[in-house]
């Protein structure tokens, strides 16, 4: 994989780790916003290369984790009661709803299918005019343009049997919500590189100005992450708070104008419920009224239900970086990757799942190497 190997180069990693160790004097808490970054930190074992003065908090940037229970219930109802074919990204399947996850709805006879691209759902709808096809449009700004494009294609084809169940969320309002919380301990952010690839950098200047925290737009490879952490920590050590772009090889300041245009054409910004966090103003994307025929909620007359009580699950506080998963009464007891109570236990980059796997190890996960 060219364009990847150089960002996984052990020599470069070692240099960055050394520099981090030399730079860090204080105690700093950073949040990596995106689930993909969390996944890379865990998968590459980066967490135990960091100096003790740097604490990484996994942010709410796993779209699967923040999809509210009532929306999953709507998807399950579409499958089991309306007999619709629901297409979804893979890791959404195991997330528990009130009575069923989508995987359980599938086992109960429902037609649930995993896809990589929403356009596959459009192709299926075209080939099966007798089926009602719904794409469960989960995701951040990164996946939303593809979802919007699917709708545009379906509209162009005049499909009467394709709709979106929109569950798209926006990152900057969530970052602001995390920081506005008086209990927040977050001192700096690694912003999600791929979100910025679409949306550009504008939205982050106001977060920096309002909350006086460093925000570093960061990529996903080991070198990217360590470099982003180093940039944020360097700012903190110097008492600075600026917006920096570590991921400049991919992220342009203006983002991707074509993708932004299709987003504006198809979706409107709306208040959104985040699982475990609550409603964040102007943090979601809903299908515009012009395309109401392609909005599953309109087509099937679905009503939003309120988020049920969390039953003691502290996923919301975990997602805001205020509690560690191990503080939850359900952790490792009622809640394990096989029987997830909260969404962060579901996907492998969920904070709770990451902690669960580490907690299974009777030996401490510390390397005996250079920085151990």
């Amino acid at each position, binding site marked *: 994989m060219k364009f990847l190997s150089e960002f996984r180069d052990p020599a470069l*990693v070692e240099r960055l780790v050394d520099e981090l160790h030399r730079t860090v004097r204080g105690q700093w808490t950073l949040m990596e916003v995106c689930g993909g970054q969390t996944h890379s930190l865990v998968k590459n074992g*980066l967490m*135990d290369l960091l100096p003790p003065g740097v604490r990484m908090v996994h942010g709410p940037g796993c779209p699967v984790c923040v999809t509210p229970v009532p929306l999953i219930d709507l998807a399950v109802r579409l499958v089991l009661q309306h007999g619709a074919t629901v297409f979804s*990204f*893979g890791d959404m399947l195991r997330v528990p709803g009130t009575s069923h996850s989508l995987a359980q709805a599938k086992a109960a006879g429902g037609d649930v299918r995993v896809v*990589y691209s929403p356009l596959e759902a459009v192709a299926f709808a075209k080939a099966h005019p007798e089926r009602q096809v719904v794409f469960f449009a989960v995701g951040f700004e990164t996946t939303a343009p593809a979802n919007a494009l699917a709708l545009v294609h379906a509209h162009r084809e005049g499909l009467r049997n394709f709709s979106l169940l929109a569950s798209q969320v926006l990152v900057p309002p969530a970052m602001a919500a995390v920081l506005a919380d008086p209990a927040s301990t977050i001192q700096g952010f690694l912003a999600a590189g791929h979100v910025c690839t679409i949306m550009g950098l504008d939205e982050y200047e106001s977060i920096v100005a309002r909350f006086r925290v460093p925000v570093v737009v960061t990529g996903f490879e080991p070198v990217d992450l360590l470099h982003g952490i180093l940039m944020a920590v360097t700012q903190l050590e110097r008492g600075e708070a600026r917006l920096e772009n570590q991921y400049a090889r991919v992220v342009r300041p203006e983002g991707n104008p074509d993708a932004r245009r299709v987003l504006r054409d198809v979706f409107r910004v709306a208040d959104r419920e985040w699982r475990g966090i609550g409603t964040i103003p102007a943090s979601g994307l809903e299908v515009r009224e012009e395309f109401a025929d392609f909005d599953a909620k309109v087509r099937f007359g679905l009503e939003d239900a309120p988020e049920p009580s969390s039953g003691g699950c502290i996923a919301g506080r975990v997602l805001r970086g205020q509690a560690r998963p191990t503080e939850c009464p359900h952790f490792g007891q009622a809640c394990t990757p*096989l029987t997830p109570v909260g969404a962060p236990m579901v996907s492998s980059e969920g904070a709770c799942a990451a902690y669960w796997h580490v907690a*299974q190890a009777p030996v401490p996960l510390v390397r005996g190497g250079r920085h151990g």
Partner: protein
Amino acid sequence: MAETLRPAPSMTLACPAPTGDGGHVIMGHGSGGLLSQQLLDRAVFSRFRAAELSQRHDGAVLAFDGPVAFSTDGYVIAPIEFPGGTIGELAVHGTINDLAMCGAMAEVLSLGLILEEGLPLSTLDRVLAAAAGVGDAAGVHVVTGATKVVERGKGDGIYITTAGIGRVHRRAAIAATRIATGDAILLSGPIAAHGIAIMSVREGLAFETPTVSDTRALHRAVGALLDACGEAVHCLRDATRGGVGAVLAELAQQGGRGMRIRQTALPIAEEVDGACELLGLDPLYVANEGVFVAIVDGAHADAALAALRAAPGSEGAVRIGTVADDGSGQVLLESAIGGARIVHLPPGEQLPRIC
């Protein structure tokens, strides 16, 4: 399904010759009557020629001296045919390999077919030709079998069960409980090819370099390893579903030993690695059909590797790690960049990640 209900040429009751490429499996093929006989003649007896099978009895009478291993498995896969093989190769290789992991060299197999009404006979022919071909190549004989037909919609075209018996190598002493501190963890070849080959067909993905399944028989590689190292081979396991990651996590758990493996030592073809990256899959958990893990006394690691590399099917063998001196029962992967993470038992099927 007018076509499948059309009276086949067999209705003349005169000639059991193949019905040509246009035919399909119909319910009557499972009736036990003439249609069944015709199907078996065409598809099975023409290809599998063991003396025991040709007696067309209800079972095979066999004689063995000394210890034998006995194993069975069921094969279900969609699609039935995929880059690098069919369900036929999988069914024969799978049981040969299960026996090999017991230190046994497969000699005879049973072959159970569950066919779905409507399956093109040409597909059945290709699957069974493939099964017979790899059985012959492996020196393994099908000595008994059975065929059933289920209604359309109640099967995935074809399911196969195979059971097998193999003579246990005289120096084999294989058990997870024999895994000991300092043992070398060896891998017989590059990983994740089978799972990616299947995924690429299922998802309709076309890669520049198409990945083919690694389905292969492993008994000769295991035989060579046992000839060279005998009792120093402590444990063997083929890394099928759940991949190398699940196998190691399970062995560590069963043996109550910690394991350390190095990410940089894991052999993986560049195109397979790229596909995993694209699909959001961890190659450690992707299925293989021709790769096994061997845990060998550390002092015999070099001899074991030399034997494997000289044997057919394990030319790409490498050492990926060591059994540690802790009783953690955990596998720790040292990442390419020097970090560490736990290789855990996956909770269920690996689901592609959204971001």
